């Protein structure tokens, strides 16, 4: 008995072709740009081989924005840029115009609506972040809140370009690290600190027990039987709170108001400029969640930025600066405590031990 054919659905059309969205000057000079200059914080000019110029004005955005705000951006794009705008890989919005005279009025309008212009050159640009309590079931913190609190404190570094070099921040709400936490100059990471609590009554119904057991990277999970029902148990000493078991088994919630919080990481980078890309390294293992403004977290971050700003050489990313001065000096200059938690004990831990006598005495 064949079902009546549904009206054929339009699928797999993919995104619209980008060309239709390009500013005419961009389209004309596509692939033929010659150089760029920074006119002021947040304002770039790109000059083409033809001599044409395109001016870009970059405005900060909270990323979590309403359609009304998008429409506001559209209004401004129409007013100054023939309707052309884009977003950056850091979720800023960029307005593009070939009319240099439009720059200041545009900035004025943006500022009036509460959107700062900046984030280019040697500044702190927008913070890459993730869902947090706003939308994700895994979150150990709310990164929208943390990011807002941080950017308020770091505002001057967005609107001025006064750091030794670019400083890239990221924040993620759990170890899945949706974003760039593992390779940022400074990263904020939501972290659990207590093993999942097992809901023995529902494990057998909602989880596949072998998958759950094998999901644990440290083999902390074993099958067991509780009140005649199949369940799992956790060897708490082996648990490092990665939540991977929770991802595959909802009956093992790990979020816990008393023990969730934030860790702070430093010295990663992505670009290949000068040095190879680097992972971030642990700076502060744990700070309890303190919403709505996480003052302990913003203090630490602000302090790291200040010390970096005062001591790094020009063109030195944060990780390059630390490599030059050494980690002992980083900890002493920032006043952060070095603990046994900073010493790696995962798979390649041994590779991080100091295997030379290259030591600086202070």
């Amino acid at each position: 008995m064949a079902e009546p054919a549904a009206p054929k659905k339009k699928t797999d059309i993919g995104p619209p072709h980008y060309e239709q969205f390009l500013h005419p000057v961009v389209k004309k000079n596509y692939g033929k740009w010659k150089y760029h200059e920074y006119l002021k914080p947040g304002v770039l000019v790109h000059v083409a081989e033809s001599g044409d110029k395109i001016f870009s004005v970059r405005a900060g955005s909270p990323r979590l924005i309403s359609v009304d705000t998008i429409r506001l951006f559209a209004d401004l794009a129409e007013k100054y840029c023939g309707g052309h705008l884009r977003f950056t890989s850091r979720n800023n919005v960029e307005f593009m115009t070939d009319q240099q005279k439009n720059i200041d009025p545009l900035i004025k309008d943006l500022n009036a609506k509460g959107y700062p212009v900046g984030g280019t050159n040697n500044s702190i640009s927008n913070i890459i972040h993730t869902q947090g309590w706003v939308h994700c079931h895994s979150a150990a913190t709310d990164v929208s809140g943390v990011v807002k609190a941080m950017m308020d404190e770091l505002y001057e570094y967005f609107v001025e370009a006064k750091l030794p070099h670019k400083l890239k921040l990221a924040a993620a709400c759990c170890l899945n690290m949706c974003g760039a936490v593992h390779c940022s100059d400074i990263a904020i990471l939501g972290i659990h600190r207590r093993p999942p609590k097992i809901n023995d009554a529902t494990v057998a119904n909602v989880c596949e027990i072998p998958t759950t057991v094998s999901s644990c990277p440290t083999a902390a999970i074993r099958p067991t039987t509780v009140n005649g029902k199949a369940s799992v148990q956790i060897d708490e000493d082996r648990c490092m709170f990665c939540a991977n078991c929770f991802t595959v088994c909802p009956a093992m919630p790990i979020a816990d108001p008393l023990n969730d919080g934030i860790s702070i990481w430093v010295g990663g980078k992505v670009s290949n400029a000068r040095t190879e890309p680097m992972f971030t390294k642990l700076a502060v293992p744990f700070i309890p969640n303190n919403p709505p403004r996480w003052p302990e977290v913003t203090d630490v971050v602000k302090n790291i930025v200040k010390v970096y700003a005062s001591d790094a050489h020009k063109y030195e990313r944060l990780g390059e600066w630390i490599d030059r001065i050494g980690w002992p000096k980083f900890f002493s200059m920032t006043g952060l405590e070095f603990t046994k938690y900073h010493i790696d004990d995962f798979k390649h831990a041994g590779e991080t031990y100091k295997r030379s006598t290259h030591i600086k005495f202070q």
Partner: protein
Amino acid sequence: MATGKKIDTPLLDQLEKGPWPSFVKELKGMAVRKPMIQDLLGQLEMSYREKRGHWKHGGLVGVMGYGGGVIGRYSDSADKFPACAHFHTVRVNQPSGWFYTSKALRELCDIWDAHGSGMTNMHGSTGDCVFLGTTSEELEPIFKELTDKGWDLGGSGSDVRTPSCCNGPARCEYACYDTMDMCYNITMAYQDELHRPAFAYKWKFKFSGCPNDCVASIARSDLSVIGTWRDDIRIDQNAVKAYADSGMDIRADVIRKCPTACMGFDGKAIKIDNKQCNHCMHCINVMPKALRPGKDTGATILIGAKAPIIEGALLASVLVPFMKLDKEDDYQEFKDLIAKIWEFWDEHGVSRERIGECIQRVGLGNFIEEIGVEPIPEMVMHPRTNPYIFYEEYFEEGDAEGAEEA
């Protein structure tokens, strides 16, 4: 679904203060006409008070014919906040380089305003326009309106995730290949793989035009394409002089920072030993008017980046040091490579194991052998230091001298 009623949010209110634009203001703005967001504010305030999230674990929802593109989300406090009991997100595949016109954005806004919460992420970390908060019933209508206007969903689950690229040739003088075109081409070529999860785990493509890697592809993509060049850096010595005259300390800021020490400056002209240059971009970044990448451009293909879960984070590693990316040939060389890799992954990948982890498990040497790529020293930081070599052949006593057994 009951209507969200306005409640006090003393904690969130504190996030309306301060100079940085406030997501709370954004939410409150929408809450005025969207009960769903009014209740979301309520639930979020509760999260801030209790210091914990209030979403249930996952939930499979989607549009007919697709396996990905929608993330199901249900509140665990639907009794208190019924308007956001369902709060799914829809991932809409962004255009290359996140370029829009105001018209295009308005179309998207209108669809979302009609069928969803009105809240978005512009953009998600993978690159999609993320539409935050709708109910299961709205999904098909949203999908229909989107496709009618020329938009499609992005990836989620074990599929090709929405590819993304830097603005490249559209607005950057450093672009060594057409990131925008290639990102679009690849997205279109793998529509099926993008919409219908059939892999062992997710697969991310990211395209950066040069080693500055402005989409962080080396850290976040299973397959990272990073533009580079293999001839000489182009030098405009007049522009060098102009920089010097304008007060730039070329020795300190450029020459001494070159990681390979392959540059010289005699006070007038810059000299580069291009065979030693490792294409780090630093000198070009500092002096864009004077220095430019060469003209024999292409890209380095790297494989296997990912976040830490569960074996530790990986950066992508070099698979092909230099590939010409031939638009005319529809990127066929690249696609052939992908086909071989996916064939390998299909056969050897285990569930929830990214390609990077898979390669580590079977060994890079075995991996490239299977996909038919020659071993070259460019693939490693250095050859092995341990003597545990899995020689694959040995002589048997009876063997004729010189004959090797497989």
